[in-house]
């Protein structure tokens, strides 16, 4: 089961590096009203070439900040730790060299596909832009843009190149955003809530599109989402974040069948199901811990049904899950181990 869950992890081979994106102890600190707040706390995450990893958590858990920190898009954020892209350290890299990597080595698809497109420029111009920035001639760039759009299943791509964003539906706009993200052939695609602004039926189509496009091009995907329902058919592996820390990391089917962290369990219970008769929606009690006022010990303890004395006092560290299939940060599991 473990083998089938992450075939790409095993199939990395010796020539290729075993991880395309290697995040180690990444902390992101931002200044808010004169106070330094650590939004992301010692996050480690490794993504193999071509692997799809989902980073899941509630709003405010730090998942989007993590995405922006990887691309170094927020100038006001202070990063510590290490982010290696294909062996290249990004933390502390000069902006000019970061710029050369953005788009070409890794790129991003954002939440709101209308507002991430410039309303005044044609679709074709915008898709060609990442190539134009890199000195490709206008003719070649537009040709590549048309091919990319066409490969993403946009009917009559040639004609649609001259359209403006407002003429497109939400799903179509996200295709355009995806074309922009993929045209310079990056190795890693970060998708930050790419389907949240879309309606449910379009969501699935866009997700499948990202899936196919990434598979075709061998692009690794980091999917940021709050919706575990979206993750199931897409990711190889899931990392769960709570209040700036990674609390669980496991192959997708392991995580779904036997969640180890009480928070993951709560998240899974809260996914609405269409195939079962549900009288009420299940909700987790309490509210997510704000990064500025994080509870002591395990940040989840005020909401945790199994909270113990030790949870209030000591921060649980990530350790191997009892079944060795992944990692979890919970005192309950450590105690099971030693018992």
């Amino acid at each position, binding site marked *: 089961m473990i083998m089938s869950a992450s075939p790409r992890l095993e199939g990395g081979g010796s020539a290729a590096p075993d991880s395309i994106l290697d995040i180690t102890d990444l902390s992101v600190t931002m200044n808010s009203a004169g106070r330094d707040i650590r939004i992301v706390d010692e996050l480690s995450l490794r993504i193999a070439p071509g692997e799809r990893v989902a980073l899941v958590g509630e709003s405010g858990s730090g998942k989007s900040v993590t995405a*922006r920190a990887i*691309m170094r*898009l927020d100038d006001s954020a202070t990063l510590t730790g290490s982010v290696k892209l294909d062996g290249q350290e990004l933390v502390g890299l000069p902006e000019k060299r970061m*710029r*050369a*990597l*953005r*788009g*070409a080595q890794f*790129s*991003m698809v*954002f*939440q*709101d596909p*209308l*507002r*991430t*497109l*410039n*309303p*005044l*420029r044609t679709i074709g111009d915008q898709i060609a*832009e*990442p190539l134009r*920035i*890199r000195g490709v001639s206008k003719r070649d760039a537009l040709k590549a843009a048309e091919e990319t759009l066409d490969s993403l299943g946009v009917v009559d791509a040639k004609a649609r190149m001259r359209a*403006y*964003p*407002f*003429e497109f539906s939400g799903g179509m706009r996200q295709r355009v*955003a995806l074309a*922009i*993200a993929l045209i*310079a052939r990056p190795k890693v695609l970060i998708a930050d809530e790419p389907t949240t602004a879309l309606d449910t039926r379009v969501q699935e189509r866009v997700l499948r599109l990202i899936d196919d496009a990434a598979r075709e091009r061998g692009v690794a995907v980091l999917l940021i989402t709050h919706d575990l329902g979206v993750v199931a058919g897409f990711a190889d592996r899931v990392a769960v974040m709570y209040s700036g820390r990674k609390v669980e990391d496991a192959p997708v089917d392991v995580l779904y069948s036997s969640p180890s962290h009480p928070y993951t369990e709560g998240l899974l219970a809260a996914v609405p199901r269409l195939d079962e008769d549900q009288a009420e929606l299940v909700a987790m009690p309490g509210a997510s811990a704000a990064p500025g006022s994080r509870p002591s010990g395990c940040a989840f303890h005020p909401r945790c049904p199994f909270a113990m004395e030790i949870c209030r006092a000591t921060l649980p560290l990530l350790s191997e899950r009892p079944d060795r299939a992944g990692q979890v940060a919970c005192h309950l599991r450590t105690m099971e181990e030693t018992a």
Partner: protein
Amino acid sequence: MSTTVLKVFRGGSPTGGLRGRLGPAKQLWFDGVVVGLVVLLVLLAAFGGLLAPNDPFLVDLGKAFIPPGPQHLLGTDESGRDVLSRLMTGAGTTLLSALVIALSAGVIGVIIAALASLAGGWLDEAVMRLCDIVLAIPALILALGIAMALGPSLQSAIIALIVAMWPGTTRIVRSSMRKNMEEPYVEAARSQGASKWNVVFRHVIPNSLDVAIVDTAFSIGGITLILASLSFIGVGAQPPSPEWGAMAADGRSYVLTSWWITVAPGLAIMVAAVAFGLLGEVLQARFNPSQGRR
């Protein structure tokens, strides 16, 4: 209007929605009258001198102070010159100068806003404070001071007004840029490897041009007034130039006996100022339907 222009027009305000291409009939009628009036004024400025029935500079003291009538529709002035002909010829001077001032101040204002944004930090702050200082002084007083320092002439008045007007555009464009900098498409462009320069000139400035255009259109009316005022006081266009403000000044002494010499250019100034002010309003409503009319 071509479809492309319409697309850009509507695309400029995604929140404005797709409702009504040209708006309801009543609004269309109003906008049409305003645009028609402005076009008429511009045509007058361009060709008025050629169409003038008489020589605007021909002095004939025997024909002085003739009241408006079939021979001279707007009468003659103290030197016997035909007021209508002078008005038509003067349109070129007054309106073209106002257009040149508004466009120059607009372009300079946008460029300085862009450079300030690129420089960032204290330089950005310094430019904005300079704008605040200039804006704190009434444009007429500032232009008057500069024009006097440069020596009274139409050119001095034009330069003085450009100096007095650009900070308004810079201020408004810079604040719009600041808002647009936060737009997701800027972050998206950066995530594709766009440089700061690229972000400012290809994404932020084009999306801030609507406020610059509206502001420039609004300012033409005021500029016409100030330019005429400067000429009226004597630091702008000099006699015998048929600039409207100078014409009104010429007739000042005879206003009780020969009112038309002053009233005709005065009315022309008023019509032009109102027409361009309304043009600003029309553009404002078209670019930002959500903000409505001022």
